């Protein structure tokens, strides 16, 4: 009978809804998926090898190219590792400004995640609305750092340029506008058909989530209360109070809801950071500019990026170039468990599951 025959379908690497260059080899029977393997590496630029060939200062623009949707996060991760290695404490004001920019970047990244999630399921309007709000955030970031996507802003012990005058008022007015709009969008996206497409799809149990190595909002969607800003606080996150949204169902809807609430929390963080923003210098140390050697040793730093817990294992041998920089990125681990989740679902569900895991393939392939 025709339906018994297993058909091999090749989804990607150029496919409208794989969120980047992922190739999924699917073995399907009728509409359900029996087995699948993921092929990655189409966006592999060997960033870690490039790190070994460049001075520390030159690596900062490189890290932007990994998670190009939230570029400032990996930049902040790399500079924090060097600061920990050379035991340099960044100035108070620059830490607050960093947190403001990081949280704005997290909101922008979640807007991309939720916007393209709606687009994958067929709801074009969410995509346009989310990218419209993201446009406002990008112009705000552009006024501080000079670039919309790639900022090259964080320096050793400080920042390149401080917040311009009148920026905080613009940011606060944007936040109130976004807060009101975000409630509307939540009601708009969560309609009856959205529930039918996401409830009970791609369920990952609590034990599997930790074993298979899930990260970030997807992990918090399966019931784990793990946020690096809470269990390993860095920068000034211990002085700011915000709560970590956790859901227990572990399906695509839970992961979407965690992401939706994290935007609300980030807005709270930025408001607090702007309220008690101290005065002071934010000039970074210029020692790192040229061939200043960095103290030898190795260090491991983890940060809560938009997609989850990311870490950098930095080994320095005392010269002015890093000896080895290994980046552990959340999307890499989330994509590893993708073939395991989609077995048994329909073809249309792959799109919902990939959208709920929100991988970015610059970060997966490095």
């Amino acid at each position: 009978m025709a339906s018994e025959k297993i058909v091999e379908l090749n989804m990607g690497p150029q496919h409208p809804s794989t969120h980047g260059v992922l190739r999924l080899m699917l073995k399907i029977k009728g509409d359900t998926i029996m087995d699948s393997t993921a092929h990655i590496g189409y966006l592999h630029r060997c960033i870690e090898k490039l790190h070994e060939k460049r001075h520390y200062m030159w690596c900062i623009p490189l890290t932007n190219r990994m998670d190009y949707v939230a570029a400032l996060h990996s930049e902040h991760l790399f500079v924090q590792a060097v600061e920990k290695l050379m035991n340099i404490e960044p100035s108070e004001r620059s830490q607050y400004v960093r947190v403001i920019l990081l949280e704005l970047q997290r909101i922008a990244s979640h807007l991309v995640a939720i916007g393209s999630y709606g687009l994958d399921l067929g709801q074009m309007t969410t995509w346009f609305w989310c990218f419209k709000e993201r446009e406002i955030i990008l112009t705000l970031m552009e006024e501080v750092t000079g670039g919309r996507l790639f900022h090259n802003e964080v320096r050793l012990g400080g920042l390149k340029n401080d917040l311009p005058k009148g920026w905080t008022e613009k940011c606060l007015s944007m936040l109130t506008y976004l807060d009101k709009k975000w409630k509307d969008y939540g009601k708009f996206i969560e309609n009856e058909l959205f529930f039918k497409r996401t409830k009970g799809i791609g369920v990952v149990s609590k034990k599997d989530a930790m074993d298979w190595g899930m990260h970030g909002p997807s992990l918090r969607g399966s019931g784990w209360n793990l946020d690096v800003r809470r269990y390993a606080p860095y920068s000034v996150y211990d002085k700011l109070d915000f709560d970590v949204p956790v859901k227990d169902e572990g399906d695509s809807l839970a992961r979407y809801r965690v992401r939706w609430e994290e935007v609300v929390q980030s807005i709270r963080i930025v408001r607090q950071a702007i309220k008690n923003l101290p005065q002071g210098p934010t000039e970074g140390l210029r020692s790192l500019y040229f061939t200043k050697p960095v103290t030898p040793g190795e260090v491991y730093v983890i940060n809560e990026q938009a997609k989850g817990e990311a870490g950098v294992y930095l080994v320095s041998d005392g010269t002015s170039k890093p000896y080895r920089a290994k980046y552990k990125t959340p999307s890499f681990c989330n994509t590893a468990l993708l073939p395991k989740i989609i077995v048994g679902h329909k073809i249309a569900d792959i799109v919902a599951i990939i959208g709920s895991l929100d991988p970015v393939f610059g970060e997966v392939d490095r």
Partner: protein
Amino acid sequence: MGVKKIVQPMLIAVKSVFQKPFTLRYPEESIYDKLPENFKQGRHIVDFNLCVGCQQCARICPSECIEMISIPENKGGNTKVNKPLLYPAVSLETCMWCNLCEEICPTTPKAIRFSKLFENSNTNKAQLVFHPLDLDEKKYSEVDFVKPEEVKDVIEGKRAPTQKTVPPAQPSQQPEQPKEEKKEDS
């Protein structure tokens, strides 16, 4: 099936019809006044009286797209070059706009800055490499932009789209002495 969850999204969708659309109609409405003054993604500007030829920008550039070209005295045609020095030539092919060159430049105000001209795409690769004399700020006024009011006749074809590149300073502009040795990493 919650009827409220069906009708509510449609009401929100209809409500957004009455708000002003967000898109900026780029060729018709000009974008240059909306760019923030801290905008650093445009083509480089080399300021000839400030630049001291210290090669810091060429050394710091991660993608090695700045090269120091020596220009003898007042050879620059309509841009007066008053001291025979090395000036940075920039290749926009591999530049990633990390702004390290502007940051490292010791002069204040910066001898190498960024203009607001971000339309740098080009059909001829050779024209992406800019001789220092082409990077002078006075040259930018001559760049033939499409003014918003001229867009209509661009559409009707009465006028060529923006002519991106600056006409070369002099076609006979030859570098005087050949490059001795390739700059290797210090």
